């Protein structure tokens, strides 16, 4: 009897587990980390990793949007692949920065293949932050980007209403973006970020912004420990914990009877 109950429990747990994980993993396609080096043909990669969500011709499916409209194009594809945003494992997964699963050669191949979709979006920009003027970049950055990504580039929450994914939109920190990615992000406007195209900034201005964003990755930390550059929040915490805290201990100590 005991054994029967135990067996029953074991089986039902296993079944429940299968049901649970089955549900989780049903749409999952291994991105094929193992084969990546052997399969470099863009079409093969696209068909294997992207088509089940975006359709064979990039027309879109219920799992993912069309890749032939809007700002889609080489710059967009390069951006989502080099920042590891795509592919995702599940249509509802949060799209965010990850280590890319592809080699630069794979990315190139996928882009080449996807050019056959003839999406209208911009081409991959060529960038050279060294030619920019960092002072101009500072001003343009504060004017156009700081409201979302914070003056210090640490990112911030966006309080936009609307759909749930918009409401949870977070402007990510920019401290790991390469100049190439920054330029692409400006051209294609990923997610809720607006587009900053050639009609907004000249090439020189773009390079200036890139220079400043690059500077913000490791800015002048004169003054000591930056504490995450969150500003008054961490400063207030430090004033209480590192400032008043030890002083309270001190007065407890010297306040004793002698």
């Amino acid at each position, binding site marked *: 009897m005991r054994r029967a109950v135990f067996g029953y429990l074991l089986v039902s747990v296993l079944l429940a587990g299968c049901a649970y994980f089955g549900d989780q993993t049903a749409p999952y396609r291994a991105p094929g980390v193992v084969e990546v080096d052997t399969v470099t043909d863009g079409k093969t990669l696209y068909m294997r990793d992207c088509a089940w969500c975006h359709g064979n011709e990039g027309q879109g499916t219920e799992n993912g949007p069309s890749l032939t409209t809007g700002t889609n194009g080489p710059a967009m594809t390069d951006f989502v692949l080099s920042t590891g945003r795509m592919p995702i494992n599940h249509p509802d997964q949060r799209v965010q920065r990850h280590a890319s699963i592809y080699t630069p050669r794979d990315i190139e191949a996928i882009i080449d293949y996807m050019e056959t979709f003839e999406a209208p979006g911009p081409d991959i920009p060529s960038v050279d932050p060294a030619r920019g*003027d*960092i*002072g101009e*970049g*500072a*001003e343009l950055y*504060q*004017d156009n980007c*700081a*409201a*979302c990504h*914070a*003056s*210090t580039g640490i*990112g*911030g*929450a966006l*309080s936009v*209403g609307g759909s*749930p994914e918009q*409401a*949870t939109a*977070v402007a990510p920190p920019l401290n790991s973006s390469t100049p190439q990615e920054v330029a692409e992000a400006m051209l294609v406007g990923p997610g809720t970020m607006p587009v900053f195209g050639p009609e907004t900034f000249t090439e020189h201005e773009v390079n200036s912004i890139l220079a*400043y964003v690059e*500077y913000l990755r490791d*800015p*002048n*930390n*004169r*003054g*000591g*420990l*930056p*504490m995450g*550059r*969150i*500003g*008054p*929040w961490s*400063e*207030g*915490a*430090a*004033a*209480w914990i*590192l*400032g*008043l805290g*030890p*002083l*309270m201990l*001190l*007065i*407890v*100590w*010297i*306040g*004793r*009877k*002698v």
Partner: protein
Amino acid sequence: MIKRLTQWIDDRLGASSFAKQALNKVFPDHWSFLLGELALYCFLILVLTGVFLSFFFDPSVSESVYRGEYEPLNGVHVSNAYKSVLDLSFEVRAGLVMRQMHHWAALIFIAAMFVHMLRIFFTGAFRRPREINWLIGLTLLILGLLNGFSGYSLPDDLLSGTGLRIAYSVVLSIPVIGTWMAFLVFGGEFPAEQIIERLFVVHIFIVPVAIAGLMTAHLAIVWRQKHTQFPGPGRTEGNVVGEKLWPTYMTKSMALFFGVSAVVAILGGLVQINPVWLYGPFRAEQIPSPAQPDWYLGWLEGALRLFPPWEIRAFGFELPNPFYPAILLPGITFNLLYLWPFLEAKLTGDREPHHLLERARDHPVRTALGIAGLAFYLVLFAAASNDLLSKWLKIPVESITNAYRVLLLVFPPVAGLITYRLMDALRRTGAEGLMHLPLSALTRRTQE
């Protein structure tokens, strides 16, 4: 020689009998009586570092092109105020460490005053005859907030400019006289030309002088009325048991001064605070995020964020939204605090003079009300960083704001009720086992 000189002075001023009396004055010993002194020494450091800063700061907002040590802003139009802060931070010898010490000392100053006030409140030290000092102390705290805010605004950077913009809209929201007041205070439409210069005068002259004067009165009154003490063996309403000013208390006090200086200097030297060069110069059209004020204004910022976007018409006037959280709330808060000693005397009917302190449990109702109040402001304070929490937890800002709204209504009464129960139980049972809880830290001394 020295003897002759002191004799000479004494013959003319009769100072020695006063000095003798003063040096023999007795101070009760309990660590919590040093909190006010902690604040005093922070103020001293603020004055010393502030004088240094004022040599280099230029309050004018006329613009020029920045050319200086800080490369990334070269060629950018900045105000002279902002430029002088950059120079202080990058070019003036020891300028940055002074700036940082000044800012850290300010944050700790207000924290120390606040904790000091809590001690006075929860031990009933404000009761007759010490109501006047309660009023002065509270005024000092308000002046501290004022000077903190005015100082924070001086560098004319993007972050503090955002604070000023909020202050401007708050002043505007005062019924009837708002527009007029805003123009009077700011000298014109925001961002007005004069505001930094005016804040500078307020920050380095008017408020500090008021603080110094009131602090002197505060201490003189403590001196005159003698210090309170916790009840204990040999301690009565009529005596003070403790250490003489000289040498014991003086030594302790000096040690405290050195301690405060050390902590402020270490923080100022090793931990970055308000890196205005990264925030950039103030521009009216820019709004940074995340933007928090310094901690001591967090409760006001939180109130602004939590208050629903109502615009209420009353008596034919439109009451703009910031009025409730930013004018009415602090108005009620500070009035309640000012009136507290008198309200309590009225409610309890106790108008006798007291020199012995109460423990938190001796007066469960006061303690519970105090904790409930603290809980209320704590929620407001936490709400000031709802955007950071949203970013970290990946929860929409709106949901977090709503959660805080609920918490604001639920947490204070619950905290108050629990405190009441706890204090009441402690009072009745005198449970000694609980004496080592943090809550009873204030009372531990008296057991010896």
